């Protein structure tokens, strides 16, 4: 799968219109000799199959090339920005699961009642809303009008200029330092972007959660549990929910990929200095190696997440053994 992704990334970047060296050099009156030198430097003058083999070999060695935009090795840029995206993704997933599961379970246990209909509409609307619009509205209401939350970024500009991160994960950093004031500031900055991204993801999880829960609630063992006289909450949370979780966990893993694509919009709206924004800027600047490296990294990351999800199955469902 990863090999297909690598090949597709390579081919798409080569068939895109425009000369990457011209985009890189940008200025006026760029002499042909300079363009030729640039093509030689980046190996763009070599036959396609040679470029392809070199590309695969370099990636296997962990060499993603150098970003011409930042001047840094691409892997350095990726690791510099990835913590911001990962932190955002984790918090977004938290909100997505919290909102999605809560609404899904509640709708299923109140099936065909007004609460169910309302939550189903809420889930559909959440899923259908454009992220950038939700983000802009949230900014306008909470940052511009109410002034209770920040507009964007990971920290206030002045704090950011003085703050030196240890791990790149600001929540973790502030806990490690025992700086609770900083923690509050970090969480305040995380709230709007992660809620925005999480809300959109929650719609889908809510729909799946409801369907899965409804299916489980109809099973014989649930009926048996009820007829034994167990409390309703025990039946739902102890017996039904655990089995209903299996498809939800699967979807959650897949949602991670969607979450990262959503992060491009969220990070742009909230000026979040993450990897998704780096990807977008690389696309705009035709930063060949940065673009290539980031897509490949995202591919590897999503594959890893799905592998972890597969492993989690065995904990949720004892029938699954590896």
């Amino acid at each position, binding site marked *: 799968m990863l090999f297909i992704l690598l090949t597709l990334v390579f081919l798409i970047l080569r068939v895109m219109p425009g000369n990457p060296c011209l985009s890189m050099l940008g200025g006026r009156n760029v002499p042909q000799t300079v363009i030729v030198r640039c093509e030689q430097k980046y190996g763009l003058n070599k036959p396609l199959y040679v470029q392809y083999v070199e590309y695969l070999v370099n990636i296997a060695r962990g060499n993603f090339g150098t970003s011409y935009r930042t*001047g840094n090795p691409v892997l350095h840029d990726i690791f510099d920005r990835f913590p911001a995206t990962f932190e955002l993704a984790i918090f977004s997933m938290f909100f997505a699961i919290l909102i999605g599961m809560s609404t899904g379970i509640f709708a299923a246990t109140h099936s065909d009642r007004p609460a169910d209909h309302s939550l189903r509409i809420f889930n559909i609307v959440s899923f259908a809303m454009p992220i950038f619009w939700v983000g802009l509205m949230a900014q306008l209401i909470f940052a511009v009008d109410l002034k209770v939350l920040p507009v964007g970024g990971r920290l206030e500009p002045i704090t*950011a200029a003085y703050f030196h991160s240890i791990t790149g994960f600001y929540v973790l950093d502030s806990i490690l330092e025992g700086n609770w004031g900083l923690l509050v500031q970090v969480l305040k900055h995380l709230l709007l972007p992660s809620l925005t991204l999480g809300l959109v993801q929650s719609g889908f999880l809510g729909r799946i959660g409801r369907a899965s829960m409804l299916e489980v609630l109809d099973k014989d063992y649930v009926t048996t549990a009820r007829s034994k006289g167990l409390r309703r909450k025990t039946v739902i949370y102890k017996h039904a929910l655990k089995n209903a979780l299996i498809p939800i966990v699967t979807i959650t893993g897949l949602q991670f990929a969607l979450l990262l694509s959503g992060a491009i919009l969220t990070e742009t709206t909230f000026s979040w200095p993450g990897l998704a924004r780096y990807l977008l800027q690389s696309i705009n600047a035709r930063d060949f190696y940065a673009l290539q490296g980031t897509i490949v990294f995202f591919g590897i990351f999503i594959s890893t997440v799905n592998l972890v999800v597969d492993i989690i199955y065995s904990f949720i469902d004892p029938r699954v053994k590896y």
Partner: protein
Amino acid sequence: MSLRVRLIGVAVLALILGLLPSTGALTQTQGQVLTIGTTDRITELSPANSYDYWTWHVFRQTTNGLVTIKPGTSEVIPALAKSWDISADGTVYTFKLRQGVTFTDGTAFNCAAMKWSIDRNLKLNGPKGGVYLISMIKETKCLDDYTLQITIKSPDTTFIKRLDNPPAWAYSPKSTPADTFAKGKWAGTGPYEMIEYKPEERVVYQAYDKYWGCNDSIVTAAEKAIFCPRIKKVIEVFYANAAALAAATQSGEVDIGFRTFNPDDIISMEKNPNLKEFKASSSVAIRYLVFNVTMAPFNNPLVREAIALSVDRSAIVSKVFAGINKPLYTMVPPGFAESENVFPARDLATARELLKQAGYTKDHPLEITLSFTPKHYGSTESDVAAVMKTSLEETGVIKLNLESLEWGTMTSRMSKADELPFFLLGWYPDFLDPDNFLAPWLTESTKSLGSFTTDTVNVKFQNMERTETDPTVRALIFAAWQGYMAADWPWESFSAILKAKLEAIANMTKLPAVKGLAEEAINQIPWGISSLTDRLAKAKELQDTVQPVVVIPLWQNMVQMYAFTKPNITGVVLDVTTYFRDWLIDMK
């Protein structure tokens, strides 16, 4: 705990987080800190290999040149040079340098350092840079420790203004690499020192405590007011887009928001009582149309003139830019004393007549394609193209197709002789002189900027204005040049005015070379053609040597000339230079 209780708990937590003050977690700042938000970007921090607004802005905050422009004016004033002399033939500039100046790395500034900086950039001359702006330098020489002599290849009155650009500024030989692009490693003379740069996030400056501009023994009180920084620490924050910048400005997250707001946000913020507005009365950022005058049907001047008469500048400005930008009728924008509105107002009847003469009618329409690039000029570009289509098609004779191109494709194709005939471009000047609004398309970079004009009259105008030292005569040359390039030269009424101007130039100049050029131009231009038929015949005959309407100015980009600040901010100067001088800003 029930689900409901948990949900309420989360909501309460969110509310507490929202209401908690943002604690001065790490803001153990000493003195005031100024925060400026922008959507601009830094490309490569190399004076010999960068050429964009915010990268040069960083150099402007951290070093100086021999001269600069006085804030609020277009007057050239001394900076690191105390004074200068120009030789009688206009080719030797002798600068007396200030003494007691140091670089932020502690190295003393003197003639050797200044010479080293200029020579270094001339030698490196990066492909992405703007070193070509000073490429007319033939030799730099130190007459003593504080006297620099620069010899240029031929007289050029624009030279002194070209020195106010990063390739000609001072960089410490101790901290700046001699043989490679600096890429963030340099030391300047201040007013600030860049202490942190995080790409696409922020740049942080600290005022240089030994800055010459604050030293009473080096500068006068008046100079101190121009050069000495008010705020000790400045943080510039890069926002992802205009909406985020507007939100950050309105919420008070930054003290100042500058470049570039959406027109609608500008209108909304103008009504915000908690914000202070600063705006320039004029802008040197312009937008225009370019023709490749060698490609059919644009090799016919009648077609180009018809399009110039059909474009609806007012519609573009009002429909796309909410009236913020200003219609432009000359390439030299208002703000320069030499600016003259020479392009005609919209006149569809005349446009149809010209098209008819060129052989196009309703039954045989002129079908053309306009290329544009939203990737480079932003989302409004497509709207501009749509308005262009409507306005040209209102003639009933033109059918306009639109072609959206990626920026790399556009630059690549426009510099090829036979690929891109008609396209939208933008211009921000290299230096503040009317020359830089005419020469690039008409004489200097006709191939790379896609006009491919071979009109030799333009070369004569350029040589006249670059040789002439008398400002009055020079202004007259620019007036004549703008008129010439804006068409209508064959018409009797217009040609009489242009001819009179050229004759005045020949009479007023004290320089025989300028007089000779003016007379040559008079002889070359075919005067007094009164009928359209004669005009068409003459146009065809001369289409390789006399080529009016190579470009059509459309609008002045005012949206980049707005800054919105908190009420306590003073000292923001937005003038014709478009420089943003952080050091003049104060917080009361």
